[in-house]
């Protein structure tokens, strides 16, 4: 053991390639991108090995936002854990609530009232729109276009107003809960929501004119960060990042819960419209198209909600006892397949809670894609994968 020398500060530059061509000395450089970098979307840290503007390697380092969310889940009752799920993917709190509630309901066999299911669909889809709006706006910001970001937030603001009217919160809702939703939708909700959808739908064309089909934007994103369908599946991508590669896979269609099978909607996939299939532009555009589909779903759900009176919540949602059993339940979140593994031991408190965040798996492909591209493409690729660090670290 005496031979082992423990370095307190390992020399990171040890294996950096230095070269001498004539009288020009070149050297690779290690650059820390993040955790405080404007375009790493939170506290992602990527160590880039660069040769001039070329990126040779990108190693994502995570853990800067780790809050022991899974461990907390093993110490509180399921309905108490709902607020913690909000903080995972904080841009799509409703979807996280929904995934955990559905998992618990499936484990305990709780029946959810019909009206609650419709409300859940409305809020999950509205939150998908809000989340994709942030993603779209921030992607424009990554590309140097400031204005779409403000437009996206302007529209998102009104979705948040609707959420606030329903549950009082604008970011961490805890609205969808075990056995239904915490409260019925407020008065005039259907009218206001429909009015909003009428306002919002034409805006999508505006974003397309301003950003999606902008020549410079297309030049920056098309043919950049190409992920083939095979690669996407092998790396476990899901959500828009997977569908951007042309794979038609959406859990809302594959095993519909909350009655998604009763709604009429399409699954947009990347088609390689502006470049090769599976490039950044495809992934970006899938989100834009998904917003349109979400509007379609919400419209149908609003019609349905008007004709579905009844309870909005199962009475025993707060006092469920978990059987000695385990379950892994996945739904299609805003960023991909969001799953919860829950193991019960007969008490109210789960023995084990594990979350599968889609951002975590999607992020893993970074090094594979970022390799041998330009420095300016790194934000383009990370932005198109659209990670939320709260969900990666949990």
């Amino acid at each position, binding site marked *: 053991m005496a031979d082992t020398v423990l370095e307190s500060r390992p020399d990171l530059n040890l294996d950096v390639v230095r070269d001498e061509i004539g009288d020009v000395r070149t050297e690779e*450089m290690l*650059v820390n991108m993040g955790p405080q*970098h*404007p*375009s790493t979307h939170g506290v992602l840290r990527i160590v880039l090995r660069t040769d*001039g*503007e070329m990126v040779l390697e990108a190693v994502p380092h995570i853990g800067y936002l780790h809050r022991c969310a899974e461990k907390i889940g093993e110490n509180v009752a399921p309905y108490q854990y709902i607020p913690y799920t909000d903080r995972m993917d904080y841009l799509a709190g409703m979807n996280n609530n929904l995934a955990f509630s559905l998992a618990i309901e499936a484990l305990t066999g709780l029946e959810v009232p019909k009206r609650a299911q419709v409300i859940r669909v409305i809020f999950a889809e509205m939150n998908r729109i809000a989340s994709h709006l942030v993603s779209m706006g921030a992607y*424009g*910001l*990554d*590309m*140097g*276009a*400031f*204005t779409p970001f*403000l*437009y996206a937030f*302007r529209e998102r*603001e*009104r979705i948040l*107003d609707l959420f606030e009217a329903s549950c009082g919160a604008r970011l961490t809702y805890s609205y969808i809960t075990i056995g239904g939703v915490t409260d019925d939708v407020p008065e005039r909700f259907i*009218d*206001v929501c429909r*009015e*909003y959808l009428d*306002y919002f739908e034409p805006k999508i064309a505006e974003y397309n004119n*301003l*950003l999606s089909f*902008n020549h*410079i*934007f297309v*030049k*920056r994103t098309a043919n950049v960060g190409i992920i083939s369908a095979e690669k996407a599946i092998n790396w476990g991508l899901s959500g828009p990042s997977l569908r951007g590669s042309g794979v038609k896979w959406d859990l809302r269609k594959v095993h519909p819960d909350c009655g998604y099978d009763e709604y009429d909607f399409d699954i947009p996939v990347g088609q390689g419209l502006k470049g090769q299939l599976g490039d950044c532009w495809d992934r970006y555009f899938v989100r834009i198209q998904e917003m349109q589909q979400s509007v379609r779903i919400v419209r149908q759900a609003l019609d349905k909600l008007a004709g579905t009176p009844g309870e909005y919540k199962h009475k025993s949602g707060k006092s469920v006892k978990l059987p000695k059993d385990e379950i892994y339940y996945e739904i299609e979140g805003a960023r991909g397949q969001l799953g919860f593994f829950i193991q019960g031991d007969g008490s109210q408190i789960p023995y084990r809670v594990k979350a599968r965040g889609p951002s975590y798996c999607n992020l893993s492909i970074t090094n594979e894609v970022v390799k041998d591209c*330009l*420095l*300016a*493409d*790194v*934000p383009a690729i990370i932005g198109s994968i659209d990670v939320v660090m709260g969900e990666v670290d949990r």
Partner: protein
Amino acid sequence: MSQATIPWIEPVPEKRVAMRRKALLVLFGGGLTALIVGCVMLGVFRALPDQVGTIVFILAGVLPILGGLGLIPLGLLNGSVVLTTLGFAQIGIGALVGGLLKATPIDPLVVGVLLLVIGPIAAGLAMLTAAGVIVAFKQVVQLLLMRWTALILFCGGIVSIILLVWAHAFVFRYVAQLANDTTLNTSATTTFGGDLTIAELSTRFSGNWRPVAFVLWPLQFGLIRDLIAMGGVIGFISIIPLYTIWWERKVAGRIQSRLGPMRVGGWHGWAQSFADGMKLICKEDFVPPEGDGTLFRLAPYLAFVPAICAFIALPFATTYVFRDLDVALLFILAMLGIEVLGVIIAGWASNNKWSVYGAMREACQMVSYEIPMGMALLVPVMTAGALRLTDIAKLQQDGFGSWLAWNNPFCLIAFFCYYTASLASCKRAPFDLPESESELVAGFHTEYSGFRWSLFFFAEYAAMFAVSGLAVILFLGAWYGPLPLSWAPAGNDIASAVVRGLLFDGPILFILKCGLLLYVQIWIRWTLPRIRIDQVLYACIQVLLPLTMLVVLGSTFWLLFDNSAHPAFESFAKVVRGLLSLVGVVISIAIAGFIIFGFVNRRRLVGTLAIEHFPGS
């Protein structure tokens, strides 16, 4: 909430408060003393005109030495280092001045008046002003926050600046007139080479007005005039960025469905930039400890000073030019080229990898945009046959049709090439790669803060104005209006002067045209995404460069045939010129229409304060 109740703000220590009070007293007392000394000296000089040399020698040389000799023992006795040092300094100054007066043939009278009258009075006024500013600081800030006071201050400032400039011009002209006055000007010259000696001037200003001669005497030297005028130029280009930044923020706000600055100063936050500037000056003076401190401090000035220098040769109207160089265009381009050096040095000296990236990108970008930019500018230069900007402008005084942009098709293309390249030269979107904040944090100025950071911004906005000014002079009819100058009223009265200045000729038209081009730059910035470095190189070297080469070539042949030797082609050129002017008119009306339409429908189009759209509100 008072300061003491906020736990994380430490109250100002008693000692420092006392020190501040003392400093204020010193300023007030010193200022008053200096004023009195100056006045007394004025009296002395007026009363004793004969033995002036001796008096000056005694006052400037012997008195300080005596004072110093008195101070040294006092300092030594009290053990005060400051007093002792002051004593020695006085002896040194006295010996220096006395020696200079004895050794050189400088007119002691001039030195005496400058040193003992004007010096103390100026110093006293400066100290009193400083003391007043310190006292009134809080009140001034309060004033700035009020609506109408701010506007009145602003308008008053502008009027006083104009009056000051006018007064300077008047004095300069008067001095020149005196120099040409044969009754006054004898063959004698001063030791510095000026035409007028004090004695000659004194014959004009006799009796009580005699001190005026001493004030006017230095103004005949080019160096002194340049120094005064440089002050004006620096002041002017400090105002441009402040207002361009405010305007950009307002425009950006409107584009982005916000309001932009609304608070500071009252009316649409017009004083926002002043407040920001004040804040920036008060910030911590940070230099990265691992970086190259000297270069780090030098870099902002290397960016800022060339931007000022560009304005030396940039005319605002036929006579509104600081130095009407015959190679003005080359000079301005060269100065804007130096600015890049500051950016590169800033990136290097910061010892930050992102800064180095920014600097390298700037270097890359510069080698790609400079050539097409220069080539594009060759076209109007060839058409006009001159490099002197005022000469090029003179060709365009016959109304809209004579503007060089529609002179021939190649000029129009060259205009667009130049405008694109000038965006790159100002580091404006979509060419803002050196500071692209989503990729390089803040690029070359990542490590900069406070005043040094603001210098980079001053340089950027001054450069924006300079390149817009070049575009206006070379393509868009310089400071002439769209109507031919020959239609202008020729009278000498104020009414026709105002009509001439507003509609036909003058700096106001020039600044308005520059403002329009600046607006387009801002518009582009807040609309387009940023392009990638390889795309910049591609666009500039593979697209713009061949295009400008083609344009230069085409323009050469056009000029070869467009003369009286080829009457057929000449008439064809006239038709083309007419058509292009029509295109220009259409474009101008379209842009104006866009702007007016956008302004009238500003709320509906961008939905300012989305609340308006919100159902139920």
